[in-house]
């Protein structure tokens, strides 16, 4: 199976995500070296915390350029999905700009953060996955592959365009449905 390269930009713990891939038989390399990222066959961009510090950390290490220059399939997870878009209202920052759209606060929901298990409805099997976020993507329909209802508003929670895919939920913390999502991405 193709090696999965997990991009380490100091954003925190990568152990759960690494283990989730290893449990389904994928070898994982964790690296913060832009040369490794440029040469990788399959990339995963993780992310927890705030968008501003995450983008800063990617730029300081030259990882933003390596990610933009790569032709490999890339999966952005949670904040890692949000960073694929043009900009984020969280800190008012420019993101990677690989997908058209922006990141907005979830300001309509009764309770924020959107925390817990919710539906992912789209072009795959219906799934129930674990979320923990206060911002959500706003983008054109043509990159949306799955949505999640948050207090009456459907937000994009799976996006896909060419080599890029992003998921707003945490597949590594979403039990069987998360595992199946990762298996599908590895097979695609």
């Amino acid at each position: 199976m193709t090696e999965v390269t997990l991009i380490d930009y100091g954003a925190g713990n990568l152990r759960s995500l690494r283990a989730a891939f290893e449990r389904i038989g994928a070898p994982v390399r964790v690296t913060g070296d832009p040369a490794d990222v440029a040469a990788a066959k399959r990339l995963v961009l993780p992310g927890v915390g705030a968008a501003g510090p995450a983008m800063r950390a990617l730029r300081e290490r030259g990882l933003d350029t390596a990610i933009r220059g790569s032709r490999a399939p890339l999966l952005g997870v949670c904040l890692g999905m949000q960073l694929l878009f043009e900009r984020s209202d969280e800190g008012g920052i420019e993101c990677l700009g690989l997908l058209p759209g922006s990141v907005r606060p979830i300001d309509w929901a009764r309770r924020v953060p959107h925390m817990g298990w919710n539906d992912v409805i789209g072009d795959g099997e219906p799934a129930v996955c674990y979320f923990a976020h206060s911002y959500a993507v706003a983008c054109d329909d043509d990159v949306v592959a799955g949505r999640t209802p948050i207090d009456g508003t459907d937000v994009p929670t799976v996006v896909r365009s060419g080599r890029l895919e992003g998921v707003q939920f945490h597949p590594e913390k979403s039990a069987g449905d998360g595992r199946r999502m990762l298996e599908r991405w590895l097979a695609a």
Partner: protein
Amino acid sequence: MLRRRVIPCLDVRGGRLVKGINFESLRDCGDPVDAAQRYAEAGADEIVWLNISAGDERWPELLAAVERAAERVDVPLCVGGGITGPEQARELLLAGADKISVNTAALDRPELVSELAGRFGTQCVVVAIDAARSNGSWKAYASAGHRPTGRDAIAWARDAAERGAGELLVTSIDSDGTRAGYDVGLVAAVCGAVTVPVIASGGAGGPSDLAAALEAGASAALAASIFHDGIHSIAEVKREVAACGLPVRI
């Protein structure tokens, strides 16, 4: 639709799962990672570990257990108990905890909540509040419920949420250990005061108690002994919650 969560809470001392007997002696009940994995497989939506180590000599063992849990448990893990500053929070999060919960340290120095939220993100900062009834309101207690702070628990809940807590874990000291049901009034009062998710804790005796706490507005209900003693299963609780018309993950 966002599901209501059912959360088993495990007491962990160093790297071991323990159960208290008459508040004094502790019985070793095995590996907390095994227990967390069993609960995850049984349908737990999240796991809470409460670190009850006295002092910090067993901290490395706790971190090692969190690391093993991150490798094996595929639902979120929240770890609380004994966190006094950002450095311990960082160590737990790096080890693989998805959220950390602070209680006494935040009461003693509320700025800690905003420091943690700023550094690690609101979504991984849980503020645990131990509250007891007092003349028609609730007061917040520190040091595992032993030290009165005089602070109004509802006002503290609001303050903690404004400072950046992404979730509140609210335990009724009056109900805890009684198995006579949650303090539903406390749950409703906190849920009405804040817009972050609230986890109800303390007093679960059976599935209908968890359902009642969730009906009162809690996003999640936490229980310990009813699960550990094998009295009720996660699935049984979820069936009851679903029967009340609330969404759960089956």
